């Protein structure tokens, strides 16, 4: 049996800010867009989360929820430095580290455990080392596959850990609200509710045929998830080829203004993701899916550095090409590829045109 640890930093960006700026400690801190901007929340401190503020929420909405929240600009340079420290702690444990973002990673520790040490003890040890070296809290999930380890790290968050053993897995999964399953977004969650699926237990009680009717090609994945089956290996050094985000709408969007509004939101979220990864892309790809599920993508080169505004601009141009007849859309996605890291961008000087 494999031993997988999922480490997830607690309110990472916000905690770094509170560490570096003592006056922010104990305060509702929002990292990301200005309250009066169209930007999105990159991270919220636990104090801010009590007001319902969540990451990826529009900054304006966060301000509405908690007018006295302190909005802080993100310092990605710092976050990346801290992330490098954490990564080196992981690497000292095992080379089988799969980073998911700056503040989250899977570790396959099956072969790194000594005779007397359990994965649970090792996870506690890693969290202790993180605390000593960065003064930050992390939570850990320990289980026998990635899917369950990720669920486990959420259970005793913040600053805690949880083990899901094979004996315990089905009980935990059965009680899990359906929206907490990885890969179930808002739209799918709604679909589940409509089909009477509220928990993992309800999901497990559906046959594969019933699930196929509900989820199409994803049915097998949901079927396995309900049973805690996940064979995906921990993949170290997974070099990202692109960064993307897409949104399936619960109701098809019908008008140009609705398309643009959706693109605007995606642009801000995509820029936030890029900043989190410390990367920019040189090519923007727009994906649209029509009501009949036909899907088109269109690409365009980006000028660097890209901003949410320039992504929106380019996205709207691409939309004109992908959907010239302005047919209703059930999905819009934006992704950027040809990635370059921040320090490499813009070394090529530009001609002064105009």
């Amino acid at each position: 049996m494999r031993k997988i640890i999922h480490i997830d930093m607690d309110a990472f960006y916000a905690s770094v800010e509170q560490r570096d700026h003592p006056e922010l400690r104990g305060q509702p801190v929002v990292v990301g867009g200005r309250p009066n901007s169209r930007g999105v929340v990159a991270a919220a401190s636990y104090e801010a989360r009590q007001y319902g503020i969540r990451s990826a929420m529009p900054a304006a909405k966060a301000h509405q929820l908690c007018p006295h929240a302190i909005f802080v600009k993100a310092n990605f340079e710092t976050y990346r430095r801290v992330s490098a420290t954490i990564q080196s702690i992981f690497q000292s444990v095992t080379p089988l580290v799969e980073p998911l973002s700056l503040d989250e990673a899977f570790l396959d520790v099956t072969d790194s455990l000594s005779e007397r040490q359990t994965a649970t003890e090792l996870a506690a040890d890693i969290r202790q080392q993180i605390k000593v070296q960065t003064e930050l809290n992390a939570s850990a999930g320990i289980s026998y596959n990635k899917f369950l380890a990720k669920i486990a790290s959420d259970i005793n968050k913040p600053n805690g850990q949880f083990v899901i053993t094979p004996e315990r897995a089905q009980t935990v999964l059965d009680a899990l609200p359906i929206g907490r399953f990885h890969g179930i977004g808002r739209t799918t969650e709604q679909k589940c509710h409509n089909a009477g699926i509220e928990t993992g237990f309800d999901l497990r009680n559906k046959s594969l045929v019933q699930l196929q009717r509900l989820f199409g090609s994803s049915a097998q994945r949901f079927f396995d998830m309900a049973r805690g089956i996940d064979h995906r290996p921990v993949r170290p050094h997974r070099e990202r080829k692109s960064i993307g985000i897409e949104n399936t709408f619960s109701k098809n969007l019908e008008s140009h203004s609705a398309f643009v509004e959706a693109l605007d939101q995606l642009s801000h979220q995509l820029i936030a993701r890029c900043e989190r990864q410390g990367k920019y892309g040189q090519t923007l790809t727009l994906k649209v899916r029509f009501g009949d599920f036909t899907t088109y993508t269109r690409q365009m080169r980006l000028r660097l550095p890209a901003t949410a505004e320039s992504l929106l601009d380019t996205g709207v141009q691409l939309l004109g090409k992908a959907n010239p007849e302005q047919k209703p859309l059930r999905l819009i996605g934006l992704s950027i590829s040809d990635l370059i890291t921040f320090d490499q961008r813009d070394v090529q000087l530009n001609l002064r045109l105009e």
Partner: protein
Amino acid sequence: MKLSIAKNDLLRPLNRVIGAVERRNTLPVLGTVLFQLNQGLLELTTTDTEIELKDSVQVDADFDFEWTLPARKLFDILRSLPDDSTVNISLAETKATVQAGRAKFTLSMLSAADFPKTDSVGASTRFDIVQEDLKRLFSRVDFSMAQQDVRYYLNGLLLEIEGDVLAAVSTDGHRLSYAKHQLPAMVAEAKQVIIPNKGVRELIRLMDDPATSAQISLSDQHIQMRSGSLCFTSKLIDGKFPDYRRVMPLDNDRIGTVDRNALLAALNRVQILSNEKFNGVRLQFAGDQLSVQANNPEQEQAEDAVELNYSGEALEIGFNIRYIIDVLKVIQSETVEFKLGDSNASVLVLPPGVDDVKFVVMPIRL
């Protein structure tokens, strides 16, 4: 209705018009070729709604008709047939049968009435140019057209007519290329148009008959090229191209002259160890030697040098090596001149003593 035609008589015009057909289409009819048979003249038309290509061939038929066939499939079918085949096409309501020997293909037909028609061009400016000259003019600058740039007006080639001078300019924001051609006669009206990337590529591809003359017509929305039975029409990019004259550096007074082929060979060598993404190369102009040097993220390094005729103060400057190689490839002369400012300023590259081609390249900050 039945039609009989030698394979190559049909493949030749189809090959010329196939370039307008995109592989992926939002409108199914854009994947087809329109056939219009009128008094024994069979005209083939393709379009992506931006570019329209037409060619025709004489056939032996006693009926007039319009129909469409899937362009790429028909093209692949014809190419797969033996050269001496005779192709028999039978047309029914919604299906067409293409038969050659014992091979038989049943293809679907979309309504010819749905095939998009291009508005008439109504040109205000006209001139004639030999195919070879037009091809050379475009081929000298097409490499630096922007691709899919948000500045949509850069995704093409500027064609400018002033008096008897025809100039072509392209820029992707990092480099700019300029070439000109002397027309045999004055053109009454001065004009600037931007031809989209794909139109430029198709025009270059279609200019395969060097000595034949082509008639170019320009309106505010279209460019049209007629040559023999061939007719190419492209929409123009509606935008303002940057004033290329202001991009040309005037004060660059450090002038270095090198052997073109020697430098090209040296750059091709050091390129092996340049960073794949940024393709950086360092050029050091000093005394009688131009040193070139590249290195990659693995800290491997390549160096070479060529003889230099240079009078200015020593200068080290970085470039995307591709940009310099591109320029050296289209220049024809034995030697090439670099007019330099400083390490962060644009450089002018040109054949010495002539002004019919000029290239401006921005450096990489070292």
